[in-house]
């Protein structure tokens, strides 16, 4: 058969608008396969995957939070232990870690620092503590304790530090301990000079 005759005989098969019967059957079969029977399975897989992913994310977040929390707790515990250590060097390491890195206004640590401010026997430790407490100048408890410490402190170098700090804070309630320091016979002249300068700033 010649090509022209074949085209003439099967001309409807070349029509773009009309699908062949075979194709229709095949198409319907594929539709069924793609959208009906497997549809539920695919959704199921998507849902399962989403749930698993969510759970995995939740677990990861939980683990991360737990690790972070325990790391923070461990850091805080280590800090608190260091602040109470017998060694001056270890106490100083603790205070410097707090003022350089930790930087949180944690009540327990602040209380520990206030205890050091009133009771520690080493001047470096006390001065470093005053610097650390000065990170929170608006904390009323810290301000009250600094004033109280000035009234009790006997070490000249720490006295000078407290005078300068309270003067920087413009803490007028410090005037009473300052007057007492100026009046006291035990106070070194260098401390009297610093106290007098601070008193003049309050006027």
């Amino acid at each position, binding site marked *: 058969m010649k090509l022209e005759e074949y085209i003439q005989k099967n001309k409807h098969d070349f029509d773009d608008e009309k699908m062949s019967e075979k194709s229709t059957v095949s198409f319907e079969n594929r539709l069924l396969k793609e959208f009906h029977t497997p549809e539920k399975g695919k959704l199921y897989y998507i849902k399962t995957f989403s749930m698993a992913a969510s759970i995995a994310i939740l677990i990861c977040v939980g683990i991360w939070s737990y690790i972070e929390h325990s790391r923070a707790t461990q850091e805080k515990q280590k800090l608190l232990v260091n602040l109470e250590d017998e*060694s*001056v*060097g*270890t106490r*100083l*390491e603790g205070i*410097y870690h707090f003022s350089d890195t930790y930087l949180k206004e944690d009540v327990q640590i602040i209380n520990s620092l206030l205890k050091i401010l009133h009771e520690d026997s*080493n*001047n*470096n*430790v006390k*001065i*470093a503590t005053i610097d650390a407490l000065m990170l929170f100048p608006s904390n009323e408890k810290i301000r009250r304790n600094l004033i109280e410490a000035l009234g009790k402190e*006997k070490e*000249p*170098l720490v006295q*000078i530090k407290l005078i300068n700090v309270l003067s920087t804070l413009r803490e007028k309630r410090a005037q009473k301990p300052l007057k007492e320091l100026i009046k006291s*016979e*035990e*106070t*070194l*002249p*260098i401390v*009297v000079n610093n106290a007098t300068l601070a008193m003049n700033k309050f006027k």
Partner: protein
Amino acid sequence: MKHIFISLLSFFFIAQTSSAQETKIPFSKGILKICSSKNFKISGYNGKEVIIKSLHKKNISSRNFVLEFEKARTRDSMNTKNLFGFIRSNNASRKKGLKKLGKNSPQENGIYFDIIEKEGELLLQDKTGKDWFVMVSDESYEIKVPNTVSLNWNTSKCSKNKNVFYNSKTSSLSNFSEEVTITSTLNNLLLQDVSGPVSINSIGGNVTVEFDKKTPSQLYSIYTNNGFIDITLPSTSNLIVDAKGNSIFSNLDFNILSEEENSGVQEMKLQLKSGKVKMKLNASLGDIYLRKK
């Protein structure tokens, strides 16, 4: 010339016979506490005894120009006129060949401070009375301390009386590798190859720290009110320095992390290498010098 030679010979003879007295105290664990304004040259060593050697003359009143002042009753009495009313100068030549009697008599070993041993603590303390304090002393001691003992050194007699203690000679500490805490009023201090941890505070004393064979390996914390802080370091030191003072000078190649200047006080954060060891320096009104070795 002959006279000079004889005098020098006599001087060396006297020096040889009247000094270099050693006292050895077995002590290798705990704290060596020194509460004295006298001059000390302390060094660490690998041993098990604290060895004290007097470097001054013994018996012929080593304290031939010790000024002792009665505690001033009021601040007004601390003026020059009243202060010098209490000076008591010992007459060395009059005492020559004699020994002071009584239990407070000078020791044969030339040591004129108390040595008290408690549990875990060896205390070396000035012999001054309750209301007296030593203002100037020409006594000088060399102390060798085991490198397994911590040192707590106060250049006063550790009493609650806040009198000023002063010795014009610089006291020193060298080759020490245990923890050191030093409290001084006006005494100058020199530390050589002391690896730390070290904490020093002083009102007006100058603090000089030199690293020659070692680098700082643990925390250094130094506070002075108006004394200078002078530190010589190898450039290979691994440090982070927080320095605060009137002015900061250096020829080291620091990485400057931050700097501020408030009311004429300079404040800087400086780093060498990765900044492993902390060094906190606060000279308030004094200057800070950081030198390259």
